[in-house]
């Protein structure tokens, strides 16, 4: 593709102590899109950013920038910038000097530095703070200065390592909007790292879900949410009910002793599978009308919905999001349609998963 800006080809990273942090990582980033690396702590997200930024050497595989191999190019010669998790704003410099740093080391003339620092600060709405010391800024302001400093060199790609994790919930939400807006305004590629699935779903054009050094699934937020590839992804992306079952035939799945019509196909007859149903897709009705009967255990008021915990007669736990409260210990029915279920095979590779989905969708 012509507008590919970064490509990783079969990248492996084994540290000196023998630990393999990245296993066969391959992906491409297109110009001007917002990508998110999502995964639990220790899965290798930072290691991927560092191999792209040039702070760590990959053990094998290729890192391409604009079609050229950059494995052996030092970090200071790579035309991309990073917003660090701890911001890493230089404490011996004030805001202006921090933002200007990338220009000063490139010997840009003074007038242009003034202009570009001003523009960068304006973009993050902190023009008035140029003469502040770093210690005099709040966490959110430091975060924005870190972004201003990273974009002042006009990189084609910005790498962001959990830049919002140090902020409180409210500010975090605001910054999610701002970051997304900024990315669209600048038109540069963002590779954003987070272990917060909501953040990933809200901001990204495409999400890479990782676990234990591997990318399990790539896709846009809706696909990943609605059609997770396996138990791990389903569980990690949002809340879900995952029930073991059996694929009787195409579009027919059985679990909890009943057979249901579903929207999935392309598996072996009688193959053991797992079925995912999102809590918000379950509708509480009378026991007679419901496809499954459960006994309500606890319910929590979450503001915009009730989170209800219930058990079926095989002691499977069910999580239900409902706008209305029910009675504790009541036996209720749960209704759901064929498209509310998503069937997952055990150990299916991403390639197979994608081609199977393509074979029967549309």
């Amino acid at each position, binding site marked *: 593709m012509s507008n590919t800006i970064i490509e990783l080809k079969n990248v492996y990273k084994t540290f000196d102590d023998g630990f393999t942090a990245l296993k066969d990582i391959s992906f491409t980033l297109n110009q001007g899109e917002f990508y998110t690396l999502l995964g639990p702590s220790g899965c290798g997200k930072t290691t991927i950013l560092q191999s792209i*930024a040039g702070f760590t050497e990959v053990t094998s595989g290729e890192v391409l920038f604009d079609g050229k191999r950059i494995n052996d190019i030092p*970090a*200071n010669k790579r035309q991309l910038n990073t917003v660090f998790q*701890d911001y890493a704003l230089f404490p011996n410099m004030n805001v202006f000097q921090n933002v200007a740093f990338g220009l000063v080391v490139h010997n840009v003339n003074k007038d242009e530095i003034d202009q570009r620092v001003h523009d960068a600060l304006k973009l993050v709405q902190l023009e008035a703070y140029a*003469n502040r*010391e770093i210690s005099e800024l709040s966490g959110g302001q430091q975060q924005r200065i870190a972004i201003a400093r990273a974009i002042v060199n006009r990189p084609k790609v910005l790498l962001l390592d959990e830049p919002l994790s140090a902020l409180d919930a409210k500010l975090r939400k605001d910054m999610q909007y701002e970051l997304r807006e900024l990315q669209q305004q600048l038109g540069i590629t963002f590779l954003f790292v987070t272990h917060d699935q909501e953040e990933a779903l809200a901001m990204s054009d495409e999400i890479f879900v990782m676990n234990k050094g591997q990318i399990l699934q790539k896709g846009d937020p809706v696909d990943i949410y609605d059609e997770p590839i396996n138990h791990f992804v389903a569980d990690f992306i949002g809340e879900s009910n995952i029930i073991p079952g059996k694929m009787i035939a195409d579009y027919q799945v059985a679990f909890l002793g009943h057979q249901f019509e579903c929207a999935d196909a392309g598996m072996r007859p009688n193959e053991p599978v797992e079925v995912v149903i999102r809590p918000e897709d379950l509708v509480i009705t009378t026991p007679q009308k419901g496809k499954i009967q459960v006994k309500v255990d606890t319910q929590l008021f979450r503001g915009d919905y009730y989170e209800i915990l219930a058990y079926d007669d095989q002691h499977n736990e069910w999580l239900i999001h409902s706008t209305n409260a029910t009675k504790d210990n009541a036996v209720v029915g749960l209704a759901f349609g064929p498209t509310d279920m998503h069937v997952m095979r055990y150990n299916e590779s991403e390639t197979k998963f994608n081609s199977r989905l393509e074979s029967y969708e549309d």
Partner: protein
Amino acid sequence: MAMKKSYKGLFYAPYLLWLALFVIAPVALIIYYSFFDIHHQFTLRNYQDFFESGTYLTMTANSVLYAFLITLISILISYPMALVISRLQHRNLWILLVILPTWINLLLKAYAFIGLLSRDGLVNSLFSFFGIPAQQMLFTDTSFILVAAYIQIPFMILPIYNSLTDISDSYLRASSDLGATKWQTLTKIIIPMTMPGIKSGIQIVFIPSLSLFMLSRLIGGNKIITLGTAVEEHFLTTMNWGMGSTIGVVLIVSMVVVMLFTSTKRKGRRA
């Protein structure tokens, strides 16, 4: 409550006692003695002598100059050393090796250098091996400054090393991420961020270097008369305790001046 408070005071007692006995009392005594002449008469003569006689002022200038050179040389050697050690894998071991010589008595080290630098010492033997004629090295300014710098280097390295290891890797990464070369990172990030370490190194090295009387005798061959030598002379030889104390007061004042110059002020908002 009152009981508790007095208990709390008790914990400070050893420290206060120590302070009173070994810091305040000696300083007070030195200041007191500096106002008496050799016949135990109150006088301001000592100060007058000090500031009027050319000898003492030259001596002061000499001391400051030597101390300055010693400090400068030890910074120039210590900083790169600390920088390298802080990057090594077993850096704690290496820094221990640097500290090790400070456990050896100063006098022993001085004699060791006499052995090395004397006319038929190890260094001259090496020189003659390469066909270089024997050099007079002992009792020269250069040897005094070099040996003094050697003695002071561990005290300079340690604070610099500590401030270097305090710098988080992410600053260095950020610097190179923004396009800085290794040299630019060193001059614009690492050195400014280790300024506090350099300053405390200067404080620890400069003041004692003003009065290295033992070294100036043994290595400098008594040709170099610093304030330290003069103090020793007055207390032990001429028995003019008043003059000795006056020089002591001058040393204390210069110490305070150096402290003021190198103290790390809390960074406020810049104008």
